[in-house]
């Protein structure tokens, strides 16, 4: 294949590096420095896609982020697939594989185009709201086919082989856009000493200067770009980020920049010196000041069949010729409302292709560029416009006529010009997107015929983004913005910048032209596209306004205008202008348009960064974690902690099931001795003369008399009276306590204590410090616990000297330890706390000595069974934020007569909280002991009632108890405390109904003899 449209000379491409790529399965060649779009155009490819609603052939329209059509599927392998890549922003690389996202069997001959041709008329905006309603049962079938037809590219079915990362950046001045304004701003701010980040979305920095015909200091403008970039690159207070799009502007000058690190090299990131590289990097920038030098997008004119391939923006024509040495056709007609677009015709003529005519909607254009065109002998047709393009798969001609813009009418005969390319320009729209991301509405400037950014604190627009277009003015505006930004960011003395001299040019004013009138009415004329990606036409907008959609937001939503992946960069203003004309209002009266992040779409991967897979969320480990891993533990996620769930053993070469392991572990604790890693419980050191008083305020029970050496269980409520957390607190000294919390509640309880201390009771002298990670905790429990522990400790374990709910210091395995005699199993139990760095030694020593007792490690599941047999709650499992201590029947832990009205107390007397028939905590004994009730099962009193049933409570915990040789459960039941001995029913999904008896939640050892031994 030859690059038919490539010029022999010129452009910024590297002709020494030929690259081959495929498009829709065919191989083509381009050069290093091409974008996929310029390479496609160089190879004479007209049709790059099919439109999604009407399946019309579509070609490349633009050269940058505003491109609506050239959206392709990229990727040479399944895992490397990237949907919806904008060809105009994709750098070409060797082996690039792209295909169109729509069109079957191919884009040239799309079978679906009959829909467009035949059915197009039946698809006005919102047609789907008006049909597919009958019969109602058919909607899901209709929908299946609608979905099939919709969508652009496809998601890969394999996992992304690439990685992404984030870089948190801070700067005094962030300059977005490295065109003339941005370069001047960055240089000025940097010279003044500010920390500057300059980013630009293109493969190369320089913006409009890269394809400019203009001279600076009598040299081609590109030279100034090179020298300025060299200067900036040499300054260590400047960070230059090419291929980097500022995609989101957030509050307080937080801007996200998406840097394409390797996307221009391959579809999967190549390795560099054996290291993985990231595919993309997201810079999370906190900027003191932002200079918005994003330039302006040219606006196309809206005329009939303006979507046929060969219709391009005038600026894109110049860009392809001058930057890539690609002329996208042979015979050009330019339709314009302004001087600036004449460049396209001049560039076309310089490339020695034929300019058939320039059609200018103004009656008497006479600016310098107009003169230049005339001087070259180009025919200029004034007061006229291209009203319709001829052709279906490529432009074959332009229909030109005199137009009266005031009356919106064609006023002269139509002249048919033969051409293959129509360049179009309706003026420029400043790129205001970023400035409106934080909700600040852009304002309409009638003199500019465009919106400019609204007032955003800490942000300055510069150059084209606020409608300053003449090069000399743009440079000066950029420099001034850079200086102001530096100053605002706190730089005391700002250095003046000497700017290069730009040519001064005479320009005649542009006229306001959006939709071009046609001989036929808009509804009867051939389709005039406003938003090509979403197939929104001028007629569609007209129908919408006729149907009462008058706000631009309604029009957009009803027609889908601006909802494409280009976010209406080309279409929105034209759409508003058409709606305004229909409604007989001005554009600002129809509404302004707010853009949302992203400026251009970015991959989820880039936003996720490294927070993926194993780094998605921290895994918290205890000091004994490695032992658990080596001993085959299955783990349970509890908050961020990895806790051993159970320790399956191999029995006869087969790994135990969880039930088997739990049964074995439970019996070991009940009959011998077991050990649990309890390090994850929250631990808070509390010191100060008012520590005791503080505890009395945050716990429901009394703390005034707890003596040093003693431990007490406490309940903590929120101010609404509902249980928040529970745990034991030990008195270490008169002014010193150690509080424990649930594993999941540790951080919340710590914050809760600080909240009350800092906001309500600052006068209380007390300090809280988290020691959760400092202490490793191992629970040795079971009838043999004392025997085992006595082998490795110097503590006197005599039952009268070291009583239940006591704690003592001593040594365990030669390591200083604090041992608490508390029990969460109902058995004799010691909780050994040692400094975590020694924990593994102590743990292993216990196992060495424990062999003869068959010391059995157990996990959370067995812990749950054992505590449930004893009727001990787990906050968060047996309670749910709607359970009070009274509901739990824990009246013994409620200090009704404490002097201070502790947190949550008042709420207990509210009418609903004081109700006697609230759901209360009880035990359930299934009538059939083989039945293990389902956790979460709902409880009814009348099993024969019809659905909806009257539910009276639910099962909160349920297990098989090897000790009881029966299933048993904990539950909450309405009025349960008064219903002991009554039967309740639990209807199951399979139609069975289980029967159970309400019993005390304490299933073993109600007198507590075992834990007191």
């Amino acid at each position: 294949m030859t690059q038919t449209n490539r010029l022999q000379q010129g452009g910024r491409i590297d002709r020494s590096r030929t690259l081959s790529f495929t498009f829709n399965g065919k191989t083509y060649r381009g050069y290093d420095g091409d974008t996929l779009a310029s390479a496609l155009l160089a190879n004479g490819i007209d049709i790059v896609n099919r439109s999604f609603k009407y399946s019309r052939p579509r070609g490349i329209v633009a050269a940058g982020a505003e491109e609506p059509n050239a959206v392709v599927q990229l990727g040479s392998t399944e895992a490397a697939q990237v949907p919806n890549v904008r060809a105009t922003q994709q750098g070409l690389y060797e082996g690039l594989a792209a295909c169109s996202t729509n069109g079957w069997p191919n884009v040239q001959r799309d079978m679906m185009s009959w829909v467009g041709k035949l059915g197009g008329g039946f698809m006005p905006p919102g047609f789907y709201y008006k049909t597919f309603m009958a019969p109602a049962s058919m909607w899901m079938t209709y929908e299946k086919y609608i979905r099939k037809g919709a969508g652009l590219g496809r998601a890969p079915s394999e996992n992304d082989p690439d990685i992404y990362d984030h870089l948190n950046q801070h700067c005094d001045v962030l300059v977005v856009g490295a065109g003339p304004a941005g370069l001047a701003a960055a240089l000025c701010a940097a010279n003044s000493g500010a920390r500057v980040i300059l980013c630009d979305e293109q493969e190369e920095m320089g913006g409009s200067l890269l394809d400019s015909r203009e001279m600076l200091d009598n040299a081609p403008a590109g030279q100034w770009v090179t020298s300025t970039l060299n200067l900036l690159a040499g300054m260590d207070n400047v960070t230059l980020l090419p291929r980097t799009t500022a995609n989101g502007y957030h509050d307080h000058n937080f801007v996200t920049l998406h840097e394409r690190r390797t996307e221009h090299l391959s579809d999967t990131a190549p390795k560099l010196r054996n290291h993985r590289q990231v595919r993309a990097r997201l810079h999370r920038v906190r900027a003191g000041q932002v200079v918005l030098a994003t330039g302006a997008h040219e606006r196309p004119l809206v005329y009939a069949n303006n979507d046929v391939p060969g219709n391009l923006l005038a600026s894109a024509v110049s860009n392809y010729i001058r930057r890539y040495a690609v002329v996208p056709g042979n015979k050009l007609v330019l339709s314009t409302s302004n001087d600036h677009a004449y460049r396209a015709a001049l560039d076309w003529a310089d490339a020695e292709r034929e300019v058939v005519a320039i059609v200018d909607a103004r009656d008497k254009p006479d600016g310098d560029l107009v003169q230049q065109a005339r001087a070259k002998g180009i025919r200029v047709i004034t007061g006229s416009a291209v009203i319709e393009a001829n052709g279906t798969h490529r432009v074959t001609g332009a229909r030109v006529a005199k137009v009266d813009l005031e009356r919106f009418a064609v006023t002269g005969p139509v002249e048919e010009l033969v051409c293959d390319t129509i360049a179009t320009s309706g003026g420029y729209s400043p790129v205001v997107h970023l400035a409106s991301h934080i909700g600040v509405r852009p304002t309409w400037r009638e003199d500019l015929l465009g919106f400019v950014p609204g007032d955003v604190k800490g942000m300055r627009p510069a150059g084209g983004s606020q409608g300053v277009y003449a090069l000399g003015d743009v440079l000066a505006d950029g420099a001034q913005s850079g200086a102001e930004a530096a100053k605002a960011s706190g730089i005391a003395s700002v250095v003046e910048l000497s700017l290069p001299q730009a040519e001064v040019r005479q320009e005649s004013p542009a006229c306001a032209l959006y939709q071009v009138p046609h001989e036929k009415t808009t509804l009867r004329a051939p389709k005039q596209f406003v938003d090509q990606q979403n197939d929104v036409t001028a007629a569609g907008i007209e129908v919408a306004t006729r149907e009462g959609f008058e706000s631009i937001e309604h029009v957009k939503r009803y027609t889908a205008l601006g909802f494409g992946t280009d976010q209406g960069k080309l279409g929105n203003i034209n759409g508003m202008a058409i709606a305004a004309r229909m409604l007989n209002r001005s554009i600002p009266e129809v509404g302004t348009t707010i853009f949302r992040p992203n400026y251009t779409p970015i991959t989820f991967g880039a936003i996720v960064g490294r927070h993926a897979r194993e780094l998605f969320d921290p895994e918290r480990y205890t000091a004994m974690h490695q032992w658990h891993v080596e001993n085959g533990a299955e783990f349970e996620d509890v908050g961020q902690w990895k806790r051993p769930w159970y320790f399956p053993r191999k029995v006869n070469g087969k790994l135990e099931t969880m039930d088997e392991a739990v049964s074995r572990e439970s019996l070991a604790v009940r009959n011998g001795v077991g050990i649990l890693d309890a390090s994850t419980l929250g631990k808070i050191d509390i010191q100060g003369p008012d520590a005791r008083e503080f505890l009395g305020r945050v716990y429901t029970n009394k703390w005034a008399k707890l003596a040093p050496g003693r431990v007490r269980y406490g309940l903590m409520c929120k101010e609404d009276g509902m249980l928040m957390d529970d745990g034991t607190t030990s008195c270490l000294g008169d002014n010193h306590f150690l509080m424990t919390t649930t594993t999941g509640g540790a951080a919340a309880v710590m914050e809760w204590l600080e909240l009350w201390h800092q906001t309500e009771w600052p006068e209380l002298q007390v300090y809280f410090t988290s020691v959760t990670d400092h202490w490793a905790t191992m629970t040795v429990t079971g009838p043999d616990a004392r025997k085992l522990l006595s082998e490795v400790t110097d503590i006197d374990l005599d039952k009268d000297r070291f009583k239940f709910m006591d704690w003592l210091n001593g040594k365990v395995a030669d390591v200083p330890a604090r041992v608490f005699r508390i029990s969460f199993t109902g058995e004799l139990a010691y909780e050994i706390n040692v400094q975590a760095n020694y924990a593994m030694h102590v743990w292993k020593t216990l196992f060495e000595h424990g062999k003869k007792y068959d010391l059995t490690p157990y996990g959370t599941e067995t812990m749950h069974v054992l505590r449930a047999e004893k009727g001990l709650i787990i906050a968060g499992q047996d309670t749910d934020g709607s359970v009070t201590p009274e509901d739990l029947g824990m009246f013994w832990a409620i200090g009704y007569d404490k002097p201070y009205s502790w947190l949550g107390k008042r709420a207990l007397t509210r009418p609903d909280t004081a109700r006697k028939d609230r759901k209360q905590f009880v035990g359930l004994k299934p009538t059939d002991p083989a039945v293990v009730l389902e956790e979460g099962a709902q409880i009814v009193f009348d099993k024969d009632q019809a659905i909806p049933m009257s539910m009276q409570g639910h099962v909160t915990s349920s297990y098989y108890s090897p000790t009881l040789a029966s299933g048993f459960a904990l539950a909450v039941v309405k009025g349960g405390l008064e219903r002991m001995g009554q039967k309740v029913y639990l209807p199951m999904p399979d139609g069975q109904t289980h029967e159970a008896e309400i019993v005390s939640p304490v299933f073993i050892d109600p007198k507590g003899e075992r834990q007191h031994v």
Partner: protein
Amino acid sequence: MSDTSCASVATFDTCPDVSIPMESPLSVAVNQVSMSTPAPAVSQESQVQFEEKPFLGHLILRGSAMVLGEAVSEVLGVSLPSQPLGLVFDASGQRSVQWLSPDEWLVIVPSGEEFELENRLREVLGAAHFAIVNVSGGQTLIELSGDKARELLMKSVTYDVHPSNFPVGKAVSVAFAKASAILRRPSETRYELVLRRSFADYCYRWLVDAGEDYGLGVTR
């Protein structure tokens, strides 16, 4: 061991009198070469070096600067950084005091010194309202050095680590990836991270992953 029955505050010496093998939060990750992903070694290409300084003595001091200032000078020979985010070292560079909040400081001393230090501080402070808590088992200190250490930190913390904002002698508690960490600037060439024990492995894995670009090497 102190007598817990009469003291209003119980102190506790966690260090054994005999030699006991210790395991830091990162012992396994850093030292076990047999693991499926062994720690990357330091090489000539390493632009970041990672080293754990395990088993140091870490104490949290709570109290007002007025109360603690004098005692800290007397016992440690350094003045308590009363300005926010201050970090000071003693002459040997072995002992540091760091501002954590208006009534909270972190003291880091060589391994085994923490209990004696606590006792001496308590003695000097007497009956004043303060708290001292030993957290040596709960955190570990790691050191990052090398040309790209700062850039690696930029991948990991949202805090501005540019020297103009984060000079030597500053220490901050910050968000680190999805955990938190204390980040310190003890010298021009080094950064220190104080990590909570249970999060240390996650932070380590994060740094190794994010440091791959820079050939991060782990010193054993």
